[in-house]
């Protein structure tokens, strides 16, 4: 059962943005009014805004800084973000910047979030070098919680190697997710895997959440510049 507020946070590069976009679209498809808030103040690249089009097509409202993906490296949270708390019946998804430095942005909303029904999800990826061991995840988790002044409520196992992700590789991440769960006392809420692999893993993995790769593989600066990463060999 989805909560009214869902926050995705964790180590940078663990796939929070793409997961947040997928989650927002899934909520919308379940019939809810959804807004997604980009509160990343750390990374000027690879932002929720990359998925602007797919969000619009799916009827998800996007609140993002006008400086995201621009030449201006300004760590700012758009003032419209407050709207996420004001509209009753609205479901909101927060895409938080990586690590504790990104989670700082969450602190200003902590009181409002804590008094509302919310889920704060720790996104983990076994194939990120600095969080490849469960104990390391715990260190990151504590730092993020301290900076955000909020507690995580669950885990999203988003273990992937980008285009080289395989079903076998993903199955190997299950014990890792369980270990993180044991160490933190948090439940694993979802095992996230690329949609084409999810089809093959159906029935083998519980709590499967198929993800589509949206903005992540693109290096978008302007309309003129087409998706850059597809041009790489």
């Amino acid at each position, binding site marked *: 059962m989805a909560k009214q507020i869902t926050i995705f946070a964790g180590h940078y590069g663990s796939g929070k943005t793409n997961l947040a976009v997928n989650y927002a679209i899934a909520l919308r498809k379940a019939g809810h009014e959804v807004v997604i808030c980009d509160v990343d103040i750390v990374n*000027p690249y690879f932002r929720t805004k990359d998925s602007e089009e797919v969000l619009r097509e799916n009827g998800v409202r996007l609140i993002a800084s006008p400086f995201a993906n621009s*030449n201006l490296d300004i760590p700012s949270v758009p003032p419209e973000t407050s709207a996420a708390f004001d509209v009753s019946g609205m479901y909101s998804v927060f895409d938080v910047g990586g690590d504790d430095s990104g989670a700082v942005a969450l602190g200003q909303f902590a009181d409002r979030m804590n008094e509302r029904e919310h889920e704060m999800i720790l996104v983990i990826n076994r*194939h990120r070098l*600095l969080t490849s061991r469960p104990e390391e995840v715990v260190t990151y988790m504590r730092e993020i919680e301290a900076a955000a002044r909020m507690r995580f409520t669950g885990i999203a196992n988003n273990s992937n190697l980008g285009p*080289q992700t395989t079903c076998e590789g993903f199955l190997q991440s299950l014990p890792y997710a369980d270990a993180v769960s044991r160490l933190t006392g948090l439940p694993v809420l979802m095992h996230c895997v690329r949609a084409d692999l999810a089809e093959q893993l159906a029935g083998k993995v519980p709590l499967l959440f198929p993800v589509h790769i949206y903005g992540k593989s693109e*290096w978008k*600066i302007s309309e003129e510049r087409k998706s850059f990463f597809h*041009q*790489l060999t």
Partner: protein
Amino acid sequence: MGEKFLMKGNEALGEAAILAGCRNFFGYPITPQTELAAYMAKKLPKVGGVFLQAESEVAAINMVYGASAAGKRVMTSSSSPGVSLKSEGMSYLAGSDLPALIVNVQRGGPGLGGIQPAQSDYFQATHGPGHGDFRLLVFAPSTVQEVVDMVFLAFEKADEYRMPSMILADGILGQMMEPVEFPESAHVKTFEKPWATNGMQGKRKKNIVNSLYLQPDELERENFKRFERYQKICDTEQRWEEFMLDDAEVVVVAYGASARIAKNAIRAAREKGIRAGLVRPITLWPFPEKILREKAKTAKAFVSVELSMGQMINDIRLAIECTKPVYLCNRVGGMVMTPDEIEAVIVKAQGGAK
């Protein structure tokens, strides 16, 4: 090789440097390079190393000078405007024959420019950033995996030739994530440093590391000696990758991320019956003149693909002694060319569509 990890180029630069035995990092943050410094800040203290965020780039490069003079493997990193600030220190490193690694994750310029990727510091890197007659060894990886190899090589060659080396990356390579493998046990050649100012311990006379010469003839002698070394490097250290080159009529020259886009353009041109091929310089200094001179005998034309206003193109012309036309395909300011744009220039260079 071990397990695969999904890493940004910036992180791979950091991890590879640590594996290569670097325990000293002095820097100052700047986009799009900051993840490298952040990685070092997290990781170096855990392996007994020193991460220090200096008060400025100028301070950082002079700390590098100090650590290197003491015989330590040391690095700094920045992006374009920050590298300009470091240029005085690089000249001092070169003038004192000190090895060090300087990483430039390039962004758009000139001036403050922008934070999107560019390759417009080519002149700066390859012609000696700073005053005086000197060179840097310049390595230009084009994948995150290659970043790892280049870091090892850059440290090794810097020590071998007692000179600073640079990894010239761009914002694309710094920011993009790709799966990488690190060697299980890093084999990095180390060199004796009998010149290091690391304590006499009653065993030797004092070492002096310095770039000031009171007598002009002495300074001239040192310059000539250094350039003999540079000549040896030009003879033995040119590195490049060849792609579909054997029968190429149109030789595309591109490095770093641009070379990956160029490969797609070359494939597309081949499908149209145009014999195009790629020389990807892996070392930008020494520039891979040998292969270009060789290809100039048979090729019809050359194409320089670069995210700058035509910088590398000059080195291509010099290498082939202007015997063949050299065309330019470029985007700047953080814009990146598409394979189609490159293909169009290949077609033009070939003499129009068949």
